[in-house]
């Protein structure tokens, strides 16, 4: 299997501070990777490195065998920022159409093929049935699916999703995860799913990257989400507690470092 992302001894230094050091990761095409870590640990930085927006200060990185940034045409990216169009009557379809082929010069007029691509992305993201509704009146979960549809345009081989579960209720979190798992199954795309909580992803992800304390660990969920592996990564004693089918990650001092349970 060819690798989608390959990072060798990668390090990032920003503003005189080491954000990441000694990151090694080999992600195969078609893998579903969950990317976790506390706030400010460098999840978004790693993602920007993969997109070629932030250069590595040491080590090397390649995306589909090319320098990062060169392969961005085949990367779908769902940013954390949410579109807000209060008071605007623009429909869901209009918003997704506006992004299709957005890299091209000229006027925003879509060909028949491009319109077909918009419909495909809307269906794939599970937003087909409300494509004619005004975006501004949608719920948070519905809006998230529009961002997913925008990321799916152009049939990406790598889908990077930056905290798509943030501020969604459990039912909508579930739905988003199922959507992404289905997209992986139907398109064969590699998925890099950034999240705060491991629980919603536990059934669908193949491997885990956990970032903390300036380093990163990659491996199977059982391997990484364990007291031993996380304690090593944090450089402090961390307990991984499994109870009632959920995983809780707790610092030994007693304060919860990762609120694993949002219900």
């Amino acid at each position, binding site marked *: 299997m060819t690798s989608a992302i390959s990072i060798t001894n990668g390090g990032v230094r920003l503003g005189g501070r080491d954000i990441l050091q000694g990151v090694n990761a080999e992600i195969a095409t078609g893998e579903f990777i969950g990317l976790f870590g506390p706030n400010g640990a460098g999840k978004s930085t790693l993602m920007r490195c993969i997109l070629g927006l932030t250069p590595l200060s040491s080590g090397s990185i390649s995306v589909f065998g090319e320098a990062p940034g060169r392969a961005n*045409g085949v*990367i779908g*990216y769902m940013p954390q920022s949410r579109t807000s169009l209060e008071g605007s009557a623009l429909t869901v379809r*209009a918003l997704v159409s506006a992004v299709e082929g957005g890299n091209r*010069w000229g*006027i*925003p007029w879509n060909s028949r093929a491009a319109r077909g691509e918009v419909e495909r992305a809307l269906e794939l993201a599970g937003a087909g049935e409300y494509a004619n509704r005004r975006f501004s009146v949608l719920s948070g979960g519905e809006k998230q699916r529009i*961002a997913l549809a925008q990321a799916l345009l152009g049939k990406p081989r790598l889908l990077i999703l930056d905290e798509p579960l943030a501020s969604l209720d459990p039912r909508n979190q579930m739905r988003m995860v199922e959507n992404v798992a289905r997209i992986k199954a139907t398109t064969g795309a590699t998925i890099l799913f950034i999240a705060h909580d491991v629980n919603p992803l536990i059934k669908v992800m193949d491997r885990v990257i956990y970032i903390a304390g300036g380093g990163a660990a990659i491996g199977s969920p059982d391997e990484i989400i364990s007291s031993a592996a996380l304690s090593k990564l944090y450089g402090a004693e961390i307990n991984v507690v499994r109870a009632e089918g959920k995983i809780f990650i707790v610092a030994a001092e007693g304060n919860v470092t990762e609120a694993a349970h949002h219900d």
Partner: protein
Amino acid sequence: MIEHLNYFLSYDFVLNALIAGTLAGILGAVVGYFVVVRKAGFAAHALAHIGFTGATGAALFALSPLEGMLIISVLAGMMMGAYGNRLQRSDLAIGMTLSICLGIGMLFLTFYRGFAGHATAILFGDIFGVSHRQIIQTLVLSALSLGTLLVFSRRLLFVSLQPDLAEARGISLSASSIIFSVILAISVTLASQVVGILLVFTLVIGPAGIASRFCRTFWSGLATSVTIGLLAVWIGILLACFTNWPATFWITMIIFFLYLITEAVCRYAFRGA
């Protein structure tokens, strides 16, 4: 009525007003649509006010107010663009720049005694005072801006709606922002000839804002915005001819009433939705 109309149109200054108004109306409505999508209303407003310094200072450098305003707004626009979204959304930075520019503009005004009439024209527009030379300048500037948009609007729409995704796809946010700010500065300058610096909002944000309330697609929004802009300018100028009241007053009245009607209808139609 038709007789009156023919009579008015026989005057060069009325024709000039209609031509300049049409061009500024079209450009303002098109650029305004992007301003609304980008939520850069305050930046647009500020660019116009910053232009006041250029307009009053122009006399000191033997330039026309239009030229002076254009130079300073384009420069300010480029600076705003270079700082990108950060500055466009920073009310404080824009507000402070705005006040110092108006302060300097005020100083220039003091150097030119007896300039008060001119100041009124700059602040509130003097569409019937547009010269032949200004018409040519307006034509060239509108063509330049609309031409740029013909090439650039697809990317601009993408960047405006989903900046993070656009950046990930390799589009430079700051370059896009600079290009847009320059086009915005030009359209604001042209609009200020019609309605004045203080009321640029009317022509640049008004039609687009109204259209965005009920138009469901980009193209219908753009077409509606242009239609509203042109109707307001044309009817405003003609009403000014008939009543001898300022065209600026009529244009703002028309836009405001369209806004009120749109709000009422939208609130009724979209209630509970």
